[in-house]
């Protein structure tokens, strides 16, 4: 399934002098300026920064929803600048992403949304139901399995996106504000789920604007501000 290069990566990800400049009409918006860092396999990294700091932009570069204006990015040993379409798809299947805006398939129920990625991975049919419900139970959504995305509250949608990301047991889990729409109790539960996934060997990268959350996690924290990497500590 995954190309040989992905099996034993030198580093989970590696960014070298990455810039991302958006053009809005004549205006240039530098969303990321000269960002370099490395994450090794099995790390748990928190990406912290205020609104508009460039957190989502950085994560998007990692699964190649965007390409950098300058600089080099390697994820799971794959050089994203040179990757072919099939390789990008294979890479994305190894990464579980919790999008900030959930991005569930609008025409499918919660169950079908989670089952879809498993089918795409070629998971045998008889395993799928069990694994989908296991993931939904973990995020506390098994009761809403038959609901369509438009029928979910914001917090529920985000948890469904988390279930979709973890059901496939990814090598890398990227979560963009996974607790942004959750109350404290629910947020703690969701963090426990993410910690369990990490304990199972998955590398984790969580973006958040909540200082408190970053502190709670007590992990390596990258701090972004105005597109610059201010601190790398923990």
């Amino acid at each position: 399934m995954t190309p040989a290069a992905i099996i034993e990566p030198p580093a989970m990800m590696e960014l070298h002098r990455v810039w991302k400049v958006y053009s809005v009409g004549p205006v240039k918006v530098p969303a990321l300026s000269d960002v370099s860092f490395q994450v090794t396999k099995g790390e748990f990294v928190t990406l912290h920064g205020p609104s508009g700091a460039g957190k989502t932009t950085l994560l998007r570069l990692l699964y190649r929803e965007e390409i950098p204006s300058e600089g080099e990015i390697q994820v799971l040993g794959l050089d994203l600048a040179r990757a072919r379409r099939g390789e990008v798809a294979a890479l994305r299947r190894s990464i579980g992403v919790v999008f900030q805006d959930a991005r569930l398939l609008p025409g499918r129920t919660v169950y079908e949304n989670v089952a879809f990625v498993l089918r795409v991975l070629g998971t045998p049919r008889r395993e799928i139901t069990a694994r989908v419900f296991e993931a939904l139970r973990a995020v506390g959504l098994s009761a809403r399995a038959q609901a369509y995305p438009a029928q979910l509250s914001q917090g529920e949608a985000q948890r469904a996106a988390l279930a979709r990301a973890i059901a496939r047991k990814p090598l890398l889990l990227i979560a963009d504000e996974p607790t942004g729409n959750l109350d404290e109790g629910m947020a703690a539960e969701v963090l426990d789920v993410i910690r369990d996934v990490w304990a199972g060997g998955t590398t984790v990268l969580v973006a958040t604007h909540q200082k408190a959350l970053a502190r709670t996690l007590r992990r390596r924290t990258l701090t972004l501000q105005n597109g610059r990497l201010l601190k790398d500590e923990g």
Partner: protein
Amino acid sequence: MLAFLVGEALRDLRRAGRVAASAILLITLALGALGGFWLLSTNLGRAVGEWRERVKLVVYLRREPSSADAAALVERVRGLPGVASVRFVGKAEALGTLREVLGKDAAVADQLLQNPLPASLEVVPTAGGATPAGAQALIAGLAAMPETEEVGGGVEWIERFARGQRLVTLFGLGLGGVLGVAAILTVTTATTLVLHARRDEMEIMRLVGAPEHIVRLPLLLQGMTQGLLGALLAVWILFSVHLLLAPRLEPLVAESLGLARLTFLTPLNLATLVVIGTLLGGLGGLLARGRATP
């Protein structure tokens, strides 16, 4: 995996609802027009074939030959290039024909002291001999025979025939052009419709790492299904219209074109229509793409 793909295609089709119905009907319309033109052109072609048999040149002879001479003459003319068949018409036969033609005025013929009509040969040209150029050559050849008084009778038929063919060709080109536009529009519209219904979904599929064939194939299958349904509908409509109208149109057509029956399309024609429809639909599905990976 195939079951998954087919399942995806069917669920998309179901969800597309009114949009899919619209695309199907557009394909039906385009194919119905195509099939209708085909029907027309087949029958016009048959009519043209029958017209050709009516084209004949008349060689008026200087004097009535003996029946042996006549047979020899017929043999000789039949040997000329561009001649399909030859028939000898004696003076008596010519007067009989005139009498029939005069009908009401046949009294004129009864008043004659002697038969003033010449004997003649009726020459039916081959397809090559029935073109304006071929006819020119044939007429020259016939006029050069010593027995010939004058050649006439069929030239305006030949020109009429050539014009008829031009008319059919022009008609075909005009209708073909309109159909081309309709077909392209059908595909574009179907594509746009499918795209609008699916753009978000396709983008998300790509983001979760679905391989390109899983993103695209259901769309292709869906498009092909739409095209197939549209084509079958078109065939059914053509068949019904033919069944309904043919008996009513036949008297008129018999009069104006000289065709006794209006034939329907052959099974091969129908199969071609269905294949075209399926390909058109498939093309629409294939062209639809979400936001490309950067």
